């Protein structure tokens, strides 16, 4: 095995392990927000490392520079946090309950405050 094959194997094994870890977190965590925390980060890092392995394989084994794979890495890296934020905000707004053992709900306090302010404004008008 040459050095580049060892590098590709390490990246692929790391990617598969991280993806499996994200999926296990997806099925083991108790509420939506915890599942989002597991799925968004771990699966993204796993896919980025697998695509890096693919890029290196085609660069060194077939002397082919594939910009599309780099574009995919950039796109996944940019869009995964956006999806996490949007889905968790919509889940909170439609009233998906938190885990019953969670103790801090700072967003709930802020949203109640802004609701009260809005109500006072409409009452004054």
């Amino acid at each position, binding site marked *: *095995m040459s050095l580049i*094959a060892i590098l*590709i194997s390490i990246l692929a094994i790391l990617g*598969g392990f991280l993806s499996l870890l994200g*999926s296990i977190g997806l099925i083991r965590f108790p509420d*939506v927000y915890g599942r989002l925390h597991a799925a968004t980060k771990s699966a993204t890092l796993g896919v980025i490392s*697998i695509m890096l392995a693919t890029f290196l394989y085609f660069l060194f084994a077939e002397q082919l520079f594939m910009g599309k794979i780099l574009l*995919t890495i950039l796109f*996944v890296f940019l869009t995964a946090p956006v999806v996490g934020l949007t*889905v968790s905000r919509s889940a909170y707004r439609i009233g998906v309950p938190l885990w019953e053992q969670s103790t801090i709900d700072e967003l709930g306090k802020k949203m109640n405050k802004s609701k009260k302010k809005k109500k006072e404004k409409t009452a004054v008008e």
Partner: protein
Amino acid sequence: MLNNILMIVLVVMSISLLVCFIRAIIGPTMSDRVIALDTFGINLIGFIGILMILQETTAYSEVILVISIIAFIGSIALAKFLERGAVFDRDSN
């Protein structure tokens, strides 16, 4: 050697896809299903990447780009639809 390792990684990725699919079926709320399907799309990109190395072809490079774009757009649209009942807001306030 590289082929055997890639086969093992392919099996691991398919187990991961199966677990995401189970969560998409049993998920108690709709948000769970949206997250599970988004993770399913992201894992599918890695699966196809491994398949590209195994078959030594570059024909799937457009497929992964399109899958990543469609997973992103679909998740955003579903989240907005669940929150407001419409994907596009018509009234300005």
